[in-house]
């Protein structure tokens, strides 16, 4: 990144290889939509490109990249939130995909579904910290920078989210639970 900030355009592919895989995985997880994740990745890297001159040598790049990606995702999500047509289409596509899943993948998919449901249930601050640390692979310090808070707050939020997820995944697949979550078997 340092070479790139100094004007060495040929080093951009190195920057891409260093940050894009984890960024893309994060965005894919947030959007659950490959095309949207691709678009957000491009926009994130475009922002980094535009402000490459402000990069200070030796400063960690990944928290910066994650913070930009997160902000762009939140903005994009807010724009899309008003698009009811998009949401309806997403549900229909999700149902169609679910109906074509082989039987042996159902259990895994249900666990994933429950994880998603629990993550959606916990407060946004805890979810964001959990996703950056446990899924994005950032350190507590880096996640604190991305979220604009203290390391202690990130540790606490991650712990609470982790405890909630662990408690939820420890529960049996009973009908009452599924009914509570609004799923049909």
């Amino acid at each position, binding site marked *: 990144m340092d070479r790139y900030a100094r*004007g060495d*355009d040929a080093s951009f592919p190195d920057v891409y290889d260093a940050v*894009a895989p984890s960024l893309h995985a994060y965005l894919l997880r947030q959007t659950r939509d490959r095309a949207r994740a691709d678009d957000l990745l*491009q*926009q994130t890297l475009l922002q980094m490109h*535009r402000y490459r001159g*402000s990069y200070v040598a030796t*400063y960690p790049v990944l928290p910066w990249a994650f913070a930009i990606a997160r902000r762009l995702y939140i903005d994009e999500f807010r724009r899309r939130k008003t698009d009811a047509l998009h949401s309806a289409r997403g549900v229909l596509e999700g149902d169609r995909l679910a109906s074509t899943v082989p039987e042996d993948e159902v259990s895994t998919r249900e666990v994933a579904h429950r994880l998603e449901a629990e993550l959606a249930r916990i407060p946004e601050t805890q979810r964001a910290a959990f996703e950056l640390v446990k899924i994005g692979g950032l350190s507590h310090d880096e996640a604190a*920078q991305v979220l604009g*808070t203290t390391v202690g707050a990130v540790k606490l939020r991650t712990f609470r989210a982790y405890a909630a997820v662990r408690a939820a995944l420890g529960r049996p697949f009973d009908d009452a639970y599924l009914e509570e979550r609004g799923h049909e078997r």
Partner: protein
Amino acid sequence: MNAESSEQLRARIILRIGRERAPTRAELAAQRRLVVVGLLVAPLVVFLGAGGVRAAPRPDRLVLATTLGSAVLAIGAALLGLDRGRSMLGPPRLRLVLVAVITPFLLFAWRVLASSRHSGMMAASPERPGVRCLFLSGALVLAPLLGLLWVRRHSDPVHPRASAAALGAAAGAGAWVFVDAWCPVSYVPHLLLGHVLPLVLTIVASACFGHRALMLRAQVSDARDASRIT
């Protein structure tokens, strides 16, 4: 629509980035140097235009103490509010908010403390409510605040409002130093209206409106461009 492979995505993004010229570190530093010179010169011109230092009836020691003390506090506010520390994302929100909240208190307290040590310097001056200081503060702070917001434009993806408030505090504290040197009145109601109020207004206005300049936002053309290519 066929999903784009990782290699295709990589090639597409590298191509897209290559099409756009972005300033390098050296180019950006040169731009910022110009802005910083402007930040120093513009308030100086306003200050000298308003008459420069007006000591009487203050003793020189008091002028020196209040001005140097407030200058130290302003530099501290600027360092704490503008310095990014060891991260591209700047200091935590709490530090920025503290800078914005505490700076007016400290500057006010210093002026009162320094003036109260000299007899007659806190005397009532109801004929000078502080309106001229209020307008002078506004004139002094405008260019530095706009300059700082321009330098930091679209660069804060985490807490633009807190950053804007801290920038306002830094710019306002800089203006306070000039007003300190210019205004001999230390009557508390005068200080509150003519010195503290403009600083607080600067911080609030910067937080309310300046954050739009600092916040990172995808340009509509970027999203359209990305969607069209996919």
